[in-house]
């Protein structure tokens, strides 16, 4: 699946529509970039946070506090062959404002968070020439208590 990853040092307005020219959608004076990737895996899923317990009458309960869309993404070596793409994913990982576009026709920039930590890069056959990036991105604007 083709996706766009983008980062910026300032937040984009909500519901910003995808534009092939990222400079036109960034806030004035902001610095960022976007790049297209053909993913090896792109698996959307849902993560929920719940409060659960048992009443004194013995009834089990579970209240969903929030739910978040998450995306398991694998970008493999054929998409990371160039230094430019590897530099991009490094900058993407370091950026505070990360965005994902899943539909370049009518889609918006989806603000996502990564959870931080070490850049999740594996190396196939332990070769530095075969990097593979495994992202687990969570949509920043999740659903709260309804």
């Amino acid at each position, binding site marked *: *699946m083709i996706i766009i990853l983008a980062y910026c040092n300032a937040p984009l307005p909500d519901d910003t529509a995808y534009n092939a020219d990222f400079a036109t959608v960034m806030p004035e004076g902001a610095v960022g970039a976007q790049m297209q990737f053909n*993913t*090896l*895996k*792109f*698996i959307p899923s849902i993560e929920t946070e719940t409060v659960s317990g048992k009443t004194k009458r013995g009834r089990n309960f579970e209240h969903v506090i929030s739910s978040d869309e998450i995306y398991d993404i*694998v970008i*493999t*070596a*054929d998409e990371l*062959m160039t230094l430019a793409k590897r530099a991009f994913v490094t900058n993407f990982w370091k950026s505070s404002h990360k965005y994902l576009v899943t539909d370049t026709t009518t889609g918006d920039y989806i603000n996502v968070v990564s959870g931080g930590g070490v850049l999740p890069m594996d190396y*196939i*056959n332990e*070769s530095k*020439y*075969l990097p*593979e990036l495994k992202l687990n991105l969570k949509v920043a604007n999740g659903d709260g208590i309804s």
Partner: protein
Amino acid sequence: MATVLVKNIAESILQLPIRALTLHDGTNTVTLMQLEAESDFLFEPIIRTDDEGLPRTIAYTVKAQIFVPHNKMEVPWISYVNAMMNKTVSAVISLGAINNWPLLPTPIENTLTTRAINSSPAGQGGYIDMRDNARITIKVETPEKRQRFLITVQSIVRSIFVNEPLSVDAPTGGLDKNLIRRTLSV
């Protein structure tokens, strides 16, 4: 004339001779031509499975064995190639018809492969670009009392570039370059 042996991909697609091997270690460049007929290479795809359960080739492991007659290896080249042993170097294997492939330009620079591929008048050519990630070994052999060098080159490459139809006698009646690029490039 050396013949390319291709593993795992239809052999009829790549019956191209190895025309030359160019090596560069950042300082010295050696372009070896007039190779022995036994010179060949094998490549194996490195495959990952995508989220639809289908295989996706992400790169190729290439191993080439280049045989150079002793009298075609000039004295300074021997020391250059020896110095490249077991280091990471750049290498380009040029493929093409033996009669229409002019000398490769040196030194190996960004323009090398572009110029190499454009310099084949008949269009039957290509190259394997192992820039900055090739490993070589060299040893001397003496088959039938004549001396020759065996240079083994190994690398991981993303593409094997072929620029034009390789054979009008191919089963499809001629292969267009897009088909070939799709087959060999990832």
